[in-house]
């Protein structure tokens, strides 16, 4: 696992404290992500990685799991 994914996992643990989310879990289909947690999560990700997440990046595909979120972060960090 890359360090980005580790950090993302930590942030997820903070945003969803009662859930035990493995990289296989789908945040979207499990219904975990709702509008309030999405806003919180994006806030944390932007602060932690110094990136700017546009509404166009807010897709179920990008936010399906820690792995996909880490991939999004990596992409945005490169910009």
């Amino acid at each position, binding site marked *: 696992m890359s360090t980005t994914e580790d950090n993302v996992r930590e942030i997820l643990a903070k945003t969803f404290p009662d859930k035990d989310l493995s990289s296989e879990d789908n945040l*979207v289909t499990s*219904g975990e992500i*709702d509008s309030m947690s*999405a*806003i919180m999560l994006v806030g944390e990700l932007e602060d932690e990685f110094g990136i700017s997440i546009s*509404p*166009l990046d*807010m897709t179920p595909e990008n936010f399906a799991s820690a792995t996909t979120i880490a991939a999004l972060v990596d992409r945005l960090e490169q910009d």
Partner: protein
Amino acid sequence: MREMKSKASNVVDWLQRSANLYPDKVAFDDGTRSVTFAQLYKQSCAVATRLAREGAVREHVAILLPRSVGQVISMMGVACAGGCYVVLDDGSPADRLVSIIKTFKPAVLITCDRTAEMGETLLPGRCIRLKDACNEAPNDSLLADIHLAAKPSDLLYVLFTSGSTGTPKGVMVTHANVLAYVGWFSTCFAIGPDTVFGSQTPLYFSMSVSDVFSTICCGATLFLIPRMLFAFPVRLISWLNERKVNTLYWVPTALGIISRWDVLSVAPLKSIANVMFAGEVMPTPTLNYWMDHLPAAHFANLFGPTETTDICAYYKVTHRLADGEPLPIGHACEGCRTAIVREDGSLAAPGEEGELYVAGPFVAAGYLNDAARTRASFVQDPFDASDPRPVYRTGDIVRLGEDHEMRYVSRKDTQIKRSGYRIELGEVEAAATACAGVASCAAVFEATKNQIVLFCTGRGFDSEALTSALRARLPKYMMPDRIETLRSLPVNRNGKTDRRALLAVCSVKA
């Protein structure tokens, strides 16, 4: 159209009429399932016949289903059986559902595969699967008999709302209430067969009564927006555009998600013509964002409690307000009467603050099995001793502006609105007090941060145990954002908990 509406004496009349006029038009669609008006009527008759077979004619029936077309079929099925329904929140903790069931005392509970297990614990042996009920052969003559015996004063549903002592209050709403209220809503906003709703509010909240029943009344089409889409706002916009949604009736928080992400700059809405909102204060900057992006659309602020079916006053936005200017809540709905009343019971002068009282056919029939609270809030008309119809004291403090439009000031009590949800802080406190080790507590609402902060005193409880105790009793939307422990709660000169002092503590600690 207005005359036709008033000829109806029961919401089933509306469904029958729309099924005759628009049989193959999509009435409701939740993304998985879709029903036309003819199908909705037929399935409602099937469900009603099944309920009758269970002995549940003119009875209380509870509905425990996820957000879906199935909820609407169940609601109308109960109505066709002459009964009164409650739509339960399938995300509510078990304790809260048990409390509601205890007050509502349903004869039957409608469930589906997903909710069947919970259903069995709530009402063992008295659960019916919706899909089975839809397969029942309708008994037309029985249904006709039931319909003939129906009265406008019959209850249609009970809607449970947060109770300050911890037990949810059940607001009883009649067919007459819904006919009058939806008659107003659909006329005021020109709802018709061309209206396409993108419905946001859950079906266990009063706002859903407006779009669901005006759809049934007017032959409109209603798409239930999957909750998940609010986390993915650009997806939400595409979803609305694909379905040519032209009318929104949302809580301001939902509209705020779009403006916060500046979604409309990258993903414009193509078909929206009408945006109505209610349930909480609408921040003017949010409204201005929407008006800037939809210059041709009509916007309206609606205001009212569940106890007046949904709304009692409204304000159609006619001009752009400055970002810092609060939006008026407007004037009484046509057919409804409001009064602003001083503490001594006399009418407030224009500009003066007072409690909003509401009279007229939207006023609900009281709280289920709670004569004391009903007496306290549904009172004799203070200005007309000869009128026996009760007047509802909203507990909202308002004042009349120079433009004859009312403005909201505050609550009289500790009820708050957060993200459109009505929350009695007392209900949060009751849940905390139930945790072993908590000696006393007080919940306050920091409006600027939209946060509920819970202060507790006592020994022998830890934050984990307290959070579990709260989760067992409160739906997610009522959970406090922060929990602080104090040695003792500050007290004011009257010996009551000093909530202002607690709010001051909040801002220091932040």
